């Protein structure tokens, strides 16, 4: 695997096998990690949750466990970072392209982005992982950081 996503994910911001039962719950867990690690302001979590209601970020991958990439405006971000959560049981996110459609989501990549020109590589890494079914299957069964590293390199 050469996605290189591991270089952009803060190990402290990886939550494996969360039992969160709503999209807001997993967003707040991951946003809490990013805030504690100094990536985002305290306003970030509310901003992401609010934005997810009107401009959702679920991506339909034709799987039982799809991906969501919640994020918000740069003003809430202190420095760029990515948090990742995997869920024991998928939670519901709405489809980015069709907000009326609900998707079961098993993987959440919470993005803290504030400069599009410098964060292209990070976005491409996330996309490459999303588009790789083997990587997602590997992440679903990952139980510790070494497992994640083995998948994301």
């Amino acid at each position: 695997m050469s996605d290189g996503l591991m270089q952009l994910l803060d190990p402290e911001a990886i939550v494996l096998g969360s039992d969160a039962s709503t999209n807001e719950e997993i967003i707040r867990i991951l946003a809490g990690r990013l805030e504690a690690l100094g990536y985002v302001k305290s306003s970030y979590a509310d901003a992401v949750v609010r934005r997810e209601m009107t401009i959702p970020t679920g991506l339909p991958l034709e799987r039982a466990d799809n991906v969501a990439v919640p994020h918000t405006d740069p003003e809430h971000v202190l420095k760029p970072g990515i948090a990742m959560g995997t869920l024991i049981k998928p939670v519901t996110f709405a489809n980015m392209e069709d907000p009326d459609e609900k998707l079961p989501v098993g993987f959440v990549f919470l993005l803290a982005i504030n400069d599009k020109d410098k964060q292209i590589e990070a976005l491409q890494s996330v996309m490459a992982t999303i588009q790789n079914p083997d990587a997602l299957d590997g992440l679903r069964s990952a139980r510790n950081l070494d497992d994640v590293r083995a998948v994301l390199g």
Partner: protein
Amino acid sequence: MSKQKTILFACGTGIATSTAVNVAVTEAMKKRGLTFNAQQAKATEVPGLADSVDFIVSTTPISASVTKPVIKGLAFLTGIGKDKVLDEIEAQLRK
């Protein structure tokens, strides 16, 4: 040689997924021998900007008031149906 076309890439924040789609389309069109001017915006800004671009590629729904062609860009995030969307974009660029 016709005038270089301008594509407006849109998403919710105008910074995250539209950047990813912009890069993916730019690379793919280069392989097809096509270049274009790129702009990025929030979906909510599109109605005010649409007049100055040739067409729009968006990952989120765009107001029905926009009369320029709108191509759905989610395929560049999911990887599903990407070739078909690239063909649509190429057709618009060659118009």
